[in-house]
């Protein structure tokens, strides 16, 4: 079988979604762990150092290219999948099935993904663009110069209830996307053993609550003056 036939088949397209989705999940683990340094209660010293390591080291910079590629692949294939699948029923039903048999979030992955995408555009313009392109104020720790990403977070979130709400909404979209996506990714890869399916379901729900909650608490912490 040719690779091109393999990856463009209905199962192959889902394989791409699954692998890119799992890659993004792995990225979320790194991202949430690094950002949790803002709660070190040291005015951002640990966080700025950690962010500096990610920016200065070649390995994370190469991974960053992979991350952008992973996002692009997931987004393009995701939107294509959504529209192709929808086009398979040109004439719909007068009485919709609604949630008979399928929870709303399982059927709304395209919508939830699009909300995440909109959030991402805002998020990248808040942090990645100033940090990598337009430049950030420096801060000095032990005489060494660092990008003041902590200061940037404070500037974005403090006294900015609108932005804080948008970030929390972004996290809620991510949570629902993951409640379905986490376990669906493993089923796509062919997990049939019910013992492991139950385990993955539990892990997935835990991940979908804890990680987006931790992310949401970051802007809230700045807004409330907890850090």
């Amino acid at each position, binding site marked *: 079988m040719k690779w091109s036939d393999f990856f463009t*088949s209905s*199962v192959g397209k*889902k394989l791409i979604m699954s692998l890119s989705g799992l890659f993004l999940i792995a990225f979320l683990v790194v991202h949430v762990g690094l950002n949790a340094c803002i709660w070190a209660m040291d005015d951002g010293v640990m966080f700025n150092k950690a962010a500096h390591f990610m920016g200065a080291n070649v390995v994370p910079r190469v991974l960053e290219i992979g991350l952008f590629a992973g996002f692009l692949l997931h987004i393009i294939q995701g939107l294509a999948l959504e529209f192709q699948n929808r086009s*398979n029923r040109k004439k719909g039903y007068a009485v919709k099935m609604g949630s008979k*048999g*399928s929870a709303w979030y399982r*059927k709304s992955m395209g919508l939830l993904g699009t909300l995440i995408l909109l959030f991402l555009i805002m998020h990248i313009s808040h942090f990645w663009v100033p940090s990598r392109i337009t430049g950030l104020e420096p801060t000095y720790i032990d005489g060494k110069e660092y990008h003041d990403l902590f200061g940037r977070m404070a500037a974005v979130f403090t006294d900015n209830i609108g932005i804080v709400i948008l970030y929390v909404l972004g996290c809620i979209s991510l949570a629902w996307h993951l409640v379905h996506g986490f376990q*669906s990714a493993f*089923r796509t890869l062919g997990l049939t053993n019910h013992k492991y*399916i139950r385990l993955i379901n539990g892990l997935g729900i835990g991940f979908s609550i804890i990680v987006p909650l931790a992310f949401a608490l970051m802007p809230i912490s700045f807004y409330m003056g907890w850090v």
Partner: protein
Amino acid sequence: MEHYSMNLTLKVWKQKNATAEGNFETYQVKDISSEMSFLEMFDVLNEQLIHEGKDPIAFDHDCREGICGMCSMYINGRPHGPWHGTTTCQLHMRAFKDGDTIVVEPWRANAFPVVKDLVVDRSAFDRVIQSGGYISVNTGVSVDGNTIPIERENADKAFAAAACIGCGACVAACKNSSAMLFVSAKVSHLALLPQGDVERKNRVLNMVAQADKEGFGSCTFTEACEAVCPKEISITNISRLNSEYLKAGLSADKAH
């Protein structure tokens, strides 16, 4: 339960032929017994329509005992109507109350075009089966039972998957119009048994390719298919299909 009779309003999809526009017609039926099946209720209505010189409603049916998979009807927003694990022919009128309005539509999917009224063309499923849902064996004298030992768990799973009657409710319910519950039931049935082992790679690759060609979508595990399947085929079969497909696709050494 008490027997009772009911008067109902039916809104049924009427479409002259494959190319006609089609629209909902409203019908009144009286004195329907709670013990009738849904199709018997349609028989009563059609007799009434024939007496009135009107066009009866075309619908598919054959066995009327839940095994042939012909009776495709989307009733009040659910394939095969409100009862779980039940075909339309096994649905009984005690599922409804006096005065109810029931909306009946054909399966909707590009791959299942409407032929007339509630009848759709499901030959796409036949072509998927023809592409690999069989074992090419020389059917000589049947061998003794138990000559080929089969693990109990696999035998049970294969048997459960083999219960699929090819009705198409999974496609009708799926937001992606995916046929994967059907395809996976057929693939699993044979992949779980030693007799299916020889052709397992080509089978899954060919059947998925044919389903794609017919215009069925990708499975995104919304679980709607499993919820409406009259034979309660497990969605885990789709994971098995994916597993079979990935293994075959990565290892098969032949252009398809």
